[in-house]
């Protein structure tokens, strides 16, 4: 393994230090670890976080119109409850804290512990668990659909709503509704190498891919034959547009009762005529040019099926270290969603209008 790092133990801290040096508007707390910005005005604090290795997610999305703070764990390991707890206390302006969680067992367990800790400190707190990865078919025999690429888009959209004055409940409802309208699917052409492990997490023959991968270098739901970009994108679109019902238990923190309410909720259907915000996301080791090649086919597939691409985002946003591969995310968007999308954002890795 050869990586642009120093000691494996220091990777996350040093990279965050570099981020804060490059973007002095981001502050960096080392113990426990979180990155944040001073919130201008009396706004809800939007906090995300998760294992490191998905850069620019999440710290690169801290900024006006997007995240207030991010809690980075070790590489591919969710952060610990004390990080979100201390971070939440630090950035709460009184309007409360919304935690965005990617649905991985580790993230959910650690974030939900933090929700309880913040609650017992009388901080208004809510959490939304994002589970957009349609590669996972059932929620009964698995830990449920993983939270992947949609996280980026939801962070942007909810951040814009908060900038425009949404309160904690409105922001929470928006995040949840966006999540029910979001679907992602990822594939790997090659494995990534976790610095601490030092070797690739799997090996693939020249004509093989992992189909339906998450963002942690884990194998996909299936190893498939690979022929070419267009065939692969078409297979992914089939998975993304499949309307087989998917329901799961959604947990909502009840701030009156100090406990979670549980409710079984289904995701939304996608039907011809729908408009999408589309993301073609590189997993870290695939050049941007190839993502545009994939976008070409995606655009045609969706238009052929009667869908409309209202906005697109193409690049490396939610990565798995240096994994070769990419994911596609579709978010069903109405006029209000597009307005939030177009609103200014000024984060190190997503910026327009400012």
């Amino acid at each position, binding site marked *: 393994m050869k990586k642009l790092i120093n000691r494996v133990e220091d990777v996350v801290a040093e990279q965050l230090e570099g981020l804060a040096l490059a973007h002095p508007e981001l502050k960096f707390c080392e113990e*426990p670890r979180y990155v944040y910005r001073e919130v201008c005005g009396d706004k809800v604090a939007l906090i995300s976080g998760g*294992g490191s290795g998905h850069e620019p997610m999440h710290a690169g999305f801290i900024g006006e119109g997007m995240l207030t703070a991010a809690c980075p*764990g*070790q*590489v*591919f*390991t*969710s*952060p*610990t*409850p*004390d990080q979100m707890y201390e971070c939440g206390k630090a950035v709460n302006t009184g309007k409360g804290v919304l935690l965005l969680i990617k649905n*991985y*067992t*580790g993230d959910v*367990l*650690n974030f939900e*512990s933090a929700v309880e800790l913040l609650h017992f400190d009388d901080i208004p707190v809510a959490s939304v668990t994002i589970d957009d990865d349609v*590669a*996972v078919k059932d929620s009964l*025999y*698995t*830990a449920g659909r*993983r939270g992947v690429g949609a996280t980026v888009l939801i962070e942007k959209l909810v951040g814009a709503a908060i900038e425009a004055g949404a309160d904690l409940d409105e922001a929470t409802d928006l995040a949840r509704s966006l999540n029910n309208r979001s679907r992602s699917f990822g594939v790997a052409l090659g494995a990534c190498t*976790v610095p*601490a*492990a030092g070797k690739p*997490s*799997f090996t693939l023959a020249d004509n093989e891919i992992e189909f339906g991968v*998450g963002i*942690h*270098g*884990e*194998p996909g*739901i299936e190893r498939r034959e690979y022929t070419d970009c267009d065939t692969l994108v078409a297979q992914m679109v089939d998975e993304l547009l499949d309307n087989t019902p998917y329901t799961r238990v959604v947990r909502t923190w009840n701030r009156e009762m100090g406990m979670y309410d549980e409710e079984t909720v289904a995701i939304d259907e996608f039907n011809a005529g729908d408009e999408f915000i589309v993301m073609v996301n590189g997993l870290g080791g695939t050049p941007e040019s190839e993502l545009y090649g994939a976008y070409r086919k995606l655009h045609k597939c969706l238009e052929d099926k009667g869908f409309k691409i209202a906005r697109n985002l193409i690049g490396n946003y939610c990565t798995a270290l240096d994994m070769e591969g990419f994911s596609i995310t579709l978010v069903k968007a109405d006029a209000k969603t597009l307005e939030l999308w177009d609103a200014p954002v000024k984060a190190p890795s997503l910026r327009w209008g400012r």
Partner: protein
Amino acid sequence: MTTIKQEQIVTWLKTCAEVFAAQRDFLTDLDKEIGDADHGINMNRGFEKVAEKLPTFEDQNIEGVLKATGMALMSSIGGASGPLYGTFFIRASAAAKGKEELELADLVAVLDAAVAGVVARGKAEPGDKTMCDVWWPVLEAAKAADTLEAALPAMVTAAEAGVQSTVDMQARKGRASYLGERSIGHQDAGATSSMLMVKTLKETVLGA
């Protein structure tokens, strides 16, 4: 010997730190097959932190030691295993209220509370291919024994059998569940780390 002494608990924790340093790559490799290749790294980081902090709490009673261990694990492991092992020790601590030593009945009560805590958090069911598939048989073995001397080796045997039993299971919880049938045939990493903790306890108390 009829009890586990406070010093033995402290020694056990220190030895666990050594064991997880030595087994770091092995556990990580297990997690690579059907997870994200970090379980050994996580356990090593967590118990390194415990060992580092031990001097600040090793004089406390068993309740205090277990509580501080749980807090250290909770705030240093991360991932799925962090809150689970954190909860394990914090619940164990509550069941060891005021204790300076553990009789067999205490051990059973402590284990019972600890395992219940893990299940409450992680919602695993038998056969889901998790660390619980070690802790349940371990708890049963402890309950079935008449003496501590008999209990500890029986717990190790149960733990080893529990680890083995995970090989043929299809994962239904945690990261490995995403692999569906492809998770079958691989030994669960968290079950293995749990077994190592049980084995280290037995060796600490009864010798290798």
